C-alpha cells in the first residue's frame, strides 16, 4: 500500500460528484479545506464504532469499507460496501450518534472531516451542501436496493446485483478496468453482505463462473458477459444516480 501523503487525494470524490453535477474550483477548494491528514486503517479494524459520537466524518480514499450492524450471537449484517470517494459517515454530522459501525474490509486510507468545518462548509456553499446531501440520499437508495435483493431476489440474482453495483460505483470513481475490478474480499465478508452462508456464496460464485458470466480469481472480478449478468440481477442503475443533472 502507498503511504498516504500529507494532502488527502480527493480525485475519487470529485470524479463522483462531477458525474452528477458541475463542481466549481471554489467547491473543490472548500472540500480540500475540510479534510485533515490522511490515516491508514488496517483491514478488519473499525473506522467508526457502533454507538460512537464522532466529532468528524470520514472520507474513504483507498480500500473497501463496510457499514454493518452486530448481532448478539457474534454475527453481523453488512448493509453497504463503500468504495473510494465515499464519505462513509457523513450521517454522523446530523445523526450525532452512530446507529451502525463502519469497518475497514481491506487496508484503507481515510481522511477526517471535522464536523465544525463541515458545518461551516454548509453555511458557505449551499450547492456543494446539496451535492453532499445527494450522496447520503444515494446511500439510502443503495440500502433500499439491498433490502429488495435480501428479501425478494434469488441468491444468484442477489450476488449478480452486488457485482453490477460495485462495478458501476468503482467505474464512477475511476477505480475499475474495462469490465474488471479488484475485489479483495473473502467469501465470509460477501456472506455477511448478502445475508447468506459462506457455503452458499461459494456455490453461487461457482455457478456464475460455470455459466461463463464472470471470472473471479486472485481478488479480481472479470465480467465476461455484462448483458447476462445484468439480466440475472434484473439490474436497473437508476438508484446510483450516475447521470449529470443540476441539483
Amino acid at each position, binding site marked *: 500500500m502507498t503511504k498516504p501523503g500529507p494532502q488527502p487525494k480527493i480525485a475519487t470524490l470529485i470524479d463522483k460528484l462531477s458525474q452528477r453535477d458541475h463542481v466549481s474550483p471554489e467547491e473543490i477548494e472548500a472540500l480540500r479545506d475540510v479534510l485533515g491528514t490522511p490515516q491508514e486503517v488496517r483491514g478488519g479494524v473499525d473506522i467508526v464504532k457502533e454507538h460512537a459520537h464522532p466529532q468528524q466524518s470520514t472520507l474513504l480514499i483507498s480500500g473497501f469499507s463496510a457499514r454493518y450492524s452486530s448481532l448478539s450471537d457474534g454475527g453481523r449484517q453488512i448493509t453497504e460496501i463503500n468504495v473510494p470517494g465515499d464519505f462513509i459517515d457523513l450521517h454522523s454530522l446530523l445523526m450525532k450518534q452512530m446507529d451502525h459501525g463502519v469497518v475497514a474490509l481491506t487496508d484503507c486510507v481515510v481522511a477526517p472531516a471535522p464536523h465544525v468545518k463541515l458545518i461551516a462548509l454548509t453555511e458557505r456553499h449551499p450547492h456543494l451542501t446539496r451535492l453532499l446531501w445527494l450522496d447520503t440520499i444515494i446511500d439510502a437508495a443503495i440500502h433500499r436496493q439491498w433490502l429488495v435483493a435480501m428479501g425478494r431476489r*434469488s*441468491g*444468484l440474482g442477489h450476488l449478480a446485483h452486488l457485482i453490477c453495483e460495485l462495478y458501476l460505483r468503482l467505474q464512477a470513481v475511476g477505480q475499475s478496468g474495462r469490465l474488471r475490478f479488484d475485489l479483495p474480499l473473502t*467469501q*465470509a465478508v460477501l456472506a455477511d453482505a448478502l445475508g*447468506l*452462508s*459462506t*457455503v*452458499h456464496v*461459494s*456455490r453461487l460464485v*461457482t455457478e456464475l463462473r460455470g455459466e461463463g458470466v464472470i471470472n473471479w480469481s486472485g481478488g479480481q472480478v472479470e465480467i465476461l458477459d455484462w448483458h447476462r449478468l445484468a439480466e440475472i440481477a434484473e439490474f436497473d442503475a437508476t438508484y446510483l444516480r450516475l447521470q449529470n443533472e443540476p441539483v
Partner: protein
Amino acid sequence: MPHFYFHTDNGDCIRDDQGEDLPDVEAAREEAVAVLGEILRYRGAAFWETASFSVIVTDADGHTVVSVTAKASDAPPEGWTLAESGT
C-alpha cells in the same frame, strides 16, 4: 475452535475447501440446516429434477460429523398416510 467443512451434493458434489471455524458440533448442525434451507429456497420446481439435496459436514480430518438431506418425490414419504380429519 474446530474447523468444519460443508460439502453440498445434489447429484454433483461441490466440495467446500475453505470451511469455517465454529464453536461446536451444535453450531455445525445449525449452519448445515441453514445452508440447506437457503439453497433449496430458490430451487423451485426444478428441485424435482435432482430430487435430493444434502449438506455433509466433515471435520478437519475429513470424517463426516453430521449430514442433512431434503428429498422431493411424487409419492408420499414411506409409511405416511393422511389421517382422517375429526377423529
